[in-house]
């Protein structure tokens, strides 16, 4: 097991190096610092001097890989690749193009993101499993038939509809919670209530339908027939035999997204004005602040790889048949 984790960790390194090189290529070679400066300063009447100054302030005036004019080791370290790309490996994100400290921003903004995303995942999991178990219990009946149709209908509706509809109905007409904004500390809950609700409801369709399929697959297995032949009641069979086996793919599906919850939800945070990492990313893209986008792309890759490793480990915990070596 330990050997497996160490090996997986070693496998992860080339992936991260690849991501690093690829983002560097996209952000500095395809789209040169010159282009960035022109974009920020505007195309018209921009002087060469202004561009040089913009680049100098942000450290974009260095060579890409090799600094011939520097001394000793500085030939390597005083380059864009070293300062902007390699330092990502130690989570030194540096300054954004607008001059803010990215690391500080991320530490501040990840808490609102988590406060929104964690309840959505946990409540969503409970709701989806409950709905799916009910559909599986009534399989082959009208409850199941219309339930699945409702699920498909809910899947087919755009996420934006749930957001705007929820804001209008609950925020504006019923006036139960504020439409958008965020509070400090415990006060935040009334701002979070509506987005969490919308996040859960908008995922019921696809989630329940998928879990229902998992349950039905297990219900048709031989060991469930054995359980019936023992004389167990249908609800005991569902909870003790079907649920436990179907939970293996469900849990591992959840574990893989856990680390990426830090990244926040792009849509919900923007619409509800929640100062999390999702809205941070969206705003950065909007302002063409590539330093932030770069940092978030790399962070996303790291978290996703951690998620995949956690998934494999959670398999060994949930399923006695799986042994990692």
């Amino acid at each position, binding site marked *: 097991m330990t050997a497996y984790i160490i090996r997986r960790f070693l496998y992860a390194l080339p992936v991260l190096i690849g991501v690093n090189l690829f983002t560097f290529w996209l952000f500095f070679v395809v789209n040169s610092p010159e282009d960035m400066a022109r974009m920020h300063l505007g195309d018209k009447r921009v002087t060469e001097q202004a561009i040089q100054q913009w680049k100098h302030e942000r450290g974009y005036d260095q060579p890409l890989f090799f600094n011939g004019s520097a001394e000793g080791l500085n030939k390597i370290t005083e380059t864009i690749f070293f300062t902007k790309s390699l330092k990502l490996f130690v989570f030194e994100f540096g300054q954004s193009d607008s001059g803010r400290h990215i690391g500080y921003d991320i530490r501040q903004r990840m808490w609102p993101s988590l406060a929104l995303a964690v309840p959505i995942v946990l409540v969503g999991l409970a709701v989806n499993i409950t709905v799916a178990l009910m559909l599986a219990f009534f399989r082959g009946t009208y409850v199941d038939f219309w339930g699945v149709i409702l699920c498909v209908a809910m899947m087919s509706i755009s996420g934006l509809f749930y957001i705007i509809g929820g804001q209008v109905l609950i925020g504006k007409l019923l006036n139960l919670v504020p439409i958008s904004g965020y509070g400090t500390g415990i006060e935040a809950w009334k701002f979070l209530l509506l987005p969490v609700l919308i996040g859960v409801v908008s995922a019921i369709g696809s989630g329940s339908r998928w879990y229902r399929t998992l349950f039905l697959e297990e219900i048709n297995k031989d060991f469930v*027939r054995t359980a019936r032949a*023992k*004389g167990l009641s249908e609800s005991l069979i569902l909870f003790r035999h079907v649920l*436990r*086996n179907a939970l293996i793919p469900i849990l591992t599906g959840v574990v893989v997204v856990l680390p990426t919850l830090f990244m926040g939800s792009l849509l919900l945070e923007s619409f509800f004005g929640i100062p999390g990492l999702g809205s941070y990313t969206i705003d950065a893209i909007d302002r063409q602040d590539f330093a932030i986008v770069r940092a978030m792309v790399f962070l996303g890759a790291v978290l996703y790889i951690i998620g995949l490793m956690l998934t494999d480990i959670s398999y060994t915990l949930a399923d*006695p048949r799986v042994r990692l070596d």
Partner: protein
Amino acid sequence: MLLNIDHLQTHLGPSEAPVRVVDDVSLQLRSGETFVLLGESGCGKSMLSLSLMRLLPTGGRIVGGDIQLDGESLLDLPEVKMRAIRGGRIGMIFQEPMTSLNPVMRVGAQVAEAVRLHDPEQADRINERVIELLESVGIPDAARRMHDYPHQLSGGMKQRVMIAIAMAGRPALLIADEPTTALDVTIQAQVLDLLKQRQRDVGMAILLITHDLGVVAEMADRVGVMYAGQIVETSNLRDLYQHPRHPYSQQLFRATPSAAKRRQRLEAISGMVPPLNQRFKRCRFIERCEQAQTICQTGLPPWQGDNHSGYRCYVDAAQTANTSVTVGSQTTDSPDNQPPLLSIRDLRAYFPIRQGVLRRTTGYIKAVDGVNLDIPQARTLALVGESGCGKTTVGKSILQLPKPTGGEILYAGRDLTRLNGQALRQLRSDIQIIFQDPASSMNPRMRVEDIITEGLHAQKLGKSPETYRAQVADLLNHVGLPADTMQHYPHQFSGGQRQRISIARALAMQPKLLICDEPTSALDVSVQAQVLNLLKRLQNTLQLSYLFITHDIAVVAYLADRVAVMYLGRIVEQGDVTQILQHAQHPYTQALLEAVPTYDPTRGQKPITLQGDLPSPANPPQGCHFHARCPLAQTKCRTSYPPMKQTENGHGVACWLA
């Protein structure tokens, strides 16, 4: 009367067009009696057993008749009371022990679940009761093994756990649905013996479902032969074997391979079981019956006899006669002096076990470990052994799929293991393989024509599309399929027809050697006979050699000229088929033959000579691999591996005692 099934009718599917899987079945079962339902796949025997438990699949329903247990109708019981019957008065075990236990629950917990439901008096000593039950089904070290998960147990052990679960409620009736079909013959003997022993101890009745005439002979007091949803004959064991009355029973016996039929063609039952979505207006066996008469067309045949013994046919049993056909140009059984077609010398196939961070090789699974074999020209060499003994790996190694670890495979003066690229590719067409499961060994999205010609394209043997097509038609004709089926897809054929397509695909390459890896194990007896006949005919006409990999001794007796017995990666005995089957020297061969269920009315209880499971090939026992299971093992056997001793006429035995 413990169980009384009275004119039971079970339907599946929509009520407008039902599939009549059980169509007017009556049978009676007394306490302590074993009644065997014999039938081929799709005859409704499993549906009958599920009807008894009221556990039919979705859409299945009982539409007529009655089922009474101790005089009480099971069909009228509310679901809550029925649950007390399931696992209580009636226990049930299934065909696939591998998948019939919950993989994420410890086996002890799965037994405990049944104890808690049906034996409430044991509630405060559940653990002790579970250990008792596991010990009673012969699980060694039960107190420790109860904490194992199912995947940690072998197939035979899992079936024992299933029996323990079924016994937890102290049932009056045990339904066993093909309980040993998925198990090796040695393990089958252990499980059947266990069932009989538990029956003697607690006096329960057994309703055993099987397709295997050997299992019938081993277990039955009385037998019901099922065909297309109906019982066509009921009889006690001796009468069925000595005077089968229904034409289907007779034809079934004649289709079963055996040593006595070596010189004959097996009488395959032509045609297929009729679809059950119809209401029969005449005898349902008529299309396949050799004795059909005009009267059979007129209506449903009457039941001749009583509840205890009888058959459903117009024809009087006394009229029927046994006929047998002798194959014309039959090969002789005497050994000849031709050089072998292919020789295997010291063949080894090792698979590395890798461990640690750097995946270093820490050991090897020696699937094949020093095998010597000669495959004779135009003859059949049968390779037999339990599953996991490495016999399939031998077959694949000959094809260099993958290349063996060591040894030589001499064919046409060349060592196949040293060939590469073009030279190997050319020789590959001389050696073809057919697999156990024809359904999964053919690409479902390719037409028969493309399946058969794919190898020709690869070898660039063919010319124009027209000659290809003529060739395919010829091949299909050879294996007994109409030429116009070449445009069909594999799913449009039955199992036996698909296996014939596999054979045609192999023949397209004009091979000299055909490796047949359990080619009839997935087929019913009547269909197996068709395939065996075909193989025998092709050998005679095309002078093919066969390496026949199988665990079925009856097929070996019928088809093979030479036999090699394999145990844990090594050949323990080889010789001519009569030498091996009648004068086996090695204790393992003797035990293997002993384990084959056969009908012998003169013989009493036979002892189980082979205990336990096949050891792991990653860690074979010191000395003779077989000594741990050998009843005759001596000190020498525990320390060093015996050499292969050659006796007269090429009979070889690797045993210190031979």
